[in-house]
């Protein structure tokens, strides 16, 4: 069976190389994202000073770029938990090498998403009134409002995804603690909470990650249902649909899976993890993207089709506007969100090539961003008694770019402190999987994981 220690020796060396050596290209990437972030914050301060009218919003549609970004980033934040939680529940062995990088994607995207409810407020400096702290005036936030459900859901999901991420990180911090000296050693030994790797610790870790897996799935589904109910609860004709909650969850999973493809390809190229992220992983994630894409299209068509078929006078206005004024948004959505994935994903050769999957991931995310525009803007601009329009201004665009900058900044920063492929899960994979020659074929063999919980 070969020497186990030799194999885990070079696993440790490969996977902690990203943490211990900072290359020049890392600095370039870090500073680039830093400048983009600075530009975005500058625009936010300009909006603070000048007031909300720097955005393109107007009377009937009061929500614009900040809400669109909030829904998009909360969608991307769903990917990590989906990959690590759902695939662990389905005992998919191949998830081991990509769980850590997708969970970090979740945490960073969630921090970005958490900022937008503050950016979107008219008076941003009193955002803390949404927090239920006891105050002298005896005033509490109004828990009948979907925006308050949003604030609770975001904080619950942030706490649970950080716990889920950190519980997987403790053993890796222990390995880093043993391999580093100086201030890194102090940092990691503090983070590793005196982890020894004894079998009691492993059993408790498996117990807690089992329970977290089972409980985090309803949390991330409820996060995006409540984001969907922000729109579903209003009586604006296009938004008042009962399908908005599952439709938003599917849209989030779709853009999340696309973001996973992008991150897998970039991280694999940046940290030379060719031995750890195999074409097989791209193949499986691409299949998930295709299934969820079809499911999302089912919900999207169901929603639009039911408005069109019943020819309900109030609902028909926003559809006419969608096919008229917002025709270009619909065309980009159709091209990037439906055509590109459905053309490239069925072919195995394309599915296993990382750069093709990067292209598909980017196109899916472009489509889902436009889909959020289609969901937020046309309905509100065709309200009952007043019609309006929404043209994004330069502040809208720079806030969006600033958000990508902040995400990139956080991700590069975090990848300097944590190994992007979880060491112990990969080693566990080595123990459990093997290849056996049956007849004259090499067939992979795996241990059937006992059921969770």
């Amino acid at each position, binding site marked *: 069976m070969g020497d186990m220690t030799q194999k885990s020796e070079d696993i440790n060396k490969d996977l902690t190389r990203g943490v211990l050596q900072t290359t020049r290209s890392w600095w370039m990437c870090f500073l680039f994202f830093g400048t983009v972030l600075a530009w975005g914050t500058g625009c936010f301060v300009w909006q603070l000073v000048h*007031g909300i009218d720097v955005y393109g919003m*107007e009377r009937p549609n009061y929500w614009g770029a900040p809400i669109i970004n909030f829904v998009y980033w909360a969608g991307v934040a769903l990917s990590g938990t989906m990959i690590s939680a759902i695939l662990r529940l389905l005992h998919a062995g191949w998830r081991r090498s990509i769980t850590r990088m997708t969970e970090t994607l979740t945490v960073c995207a969630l921090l970005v998403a958490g900022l937008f409810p503050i950016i979107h407020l*008219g008076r*941003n400096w009193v955002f803390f009134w949404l927090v239920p702290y006891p105050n002298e*005036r005896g005033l509490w*936030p109004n828990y009948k409002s979907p925006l308050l459900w949003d604030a609770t859901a975001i904080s619950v999901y942030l706490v649970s995804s950080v716990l889920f991420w950190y519980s997987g990180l403790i053993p890796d911090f222990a390995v880093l603690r043993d391999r580093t000296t100086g201030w890194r050693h102090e940092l990691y030994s503090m983070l590793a909470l005196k982890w020894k790797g004894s079998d009691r610790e492993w059993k408790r870790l498996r117990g807690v990650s089992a329970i977290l897996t089972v409980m985090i799935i309803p949390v991330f589904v409820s996060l995006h249902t409540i984001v969907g109910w922000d729109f579903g609860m209003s*009586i604006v004709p296009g938004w008042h649909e009962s399908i908005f909650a599952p439709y938003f969850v599917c849209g989030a999973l779709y853009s999340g899976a696309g973001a996973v493809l992008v991150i897998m390809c970039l991280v694999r190229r940046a940290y030379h993890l060719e031995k750890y992220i195999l074409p097989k992983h791209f193949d499986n994630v691409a299949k998930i993207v295709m299934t969820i894409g079809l499911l999302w299209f089912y919900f999207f068509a169901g929603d639009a089709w039911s408005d069109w078929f019943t020819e309900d006078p109030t609902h028909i206005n926003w559809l006419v506007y969608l096919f008229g004024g917002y025709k270009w948004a619909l065309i980009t959505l159709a091209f990037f969100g439906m055509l590109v994935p459905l053309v490239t994903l069925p072919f195995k050769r394309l599915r296993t090539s990382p750069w093709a999957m990067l292209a598909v991931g980017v196109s899916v995310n472009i489509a889902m961003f436009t889909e959020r525009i289609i969901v937020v803007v046309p309905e509100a601009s065709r309200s009952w008694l007043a019609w309006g*329009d929404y043209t994004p201004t330069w502040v809208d665009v720079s806030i969006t770019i600033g958000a990508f900058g902040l995400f990139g900044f956080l991700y590069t920063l975090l990848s300097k402190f944590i190994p992007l492929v979880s060491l112990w899960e990969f080693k566990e994979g080595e123990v459990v999987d093997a290849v056996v020659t049956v007849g004259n074929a090499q067939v992979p063999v795996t241990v059937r994981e006992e059921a969770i919980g």
Partner: protein
Amino acid sequence: MALKARTQEYLKQAGKPADQSGVAASVRTSSDRKWGMVIDLDRCTGCHACEAACSAENNIPVVGAEQCHKGHAHQWIRVERYWEGNYPNVKARFMPILCQQCGNAPCEPVCPVYATYHNPEGLNVMVYNRCVGTRYCGNNCPYEVRMFNWTEPAWETPLDQQLNPDVTVRGKGVMEKCTFCVQRIRRAEEQADADGRDLEPDEFTTACAQACPPKAIVFGDVNDKRWSVNKKREDPRRFTLLEELGTEPSVVYLKALDDEA
């Protein structure tokens, strides 16, 4: 802590019977009054006098052409103009639309900080300094009568003398809407309390009703039959705006009669 005491008192009386004569008007918790309005579209000539009066009375900022083009105009009451028929015999219809003070308002439960609520007198009250500016109430109002302060309102020097002291001047990032001139209601009630009498019918009216040349807008207490507004509400031409949404508006419109009908 005075505010704390008043709120306790406010809470204590939640269950008290209607007779509130001793308590100062603004602290009254339950009141038998319900303010309503009737707008007779047959009389309305679309002269926009009500908009001018409302802006003057309620310190509504004049935002200028460039902001109006961006759709950021401020009009607590707007006269909508609809065209009927085609060219040779075309007819213009005018309809002043203001906050309907809905009994079952869709804009109230969605505000996350209780900045808008329904007071016992049937008014949809907007608490300006509590508003955080999420603008969900603006989205959810089917009549689109809620106006948002996109920028800091500015009055050049001579104009700021004209501001009405009874009404707060809203800052940037706060939602505002027609309040049925609540400052006039309070002033009339306090005057009546000071004189030790009850409010007489038609003692006061809102700025728009006062300024309307053909007296198309009539405002009054719907529960007190002596007010003239109740006589007009029984008119067979009555209808309410967007009735199928179930918002129970307290503004009643009277249909315009065509000449040949």
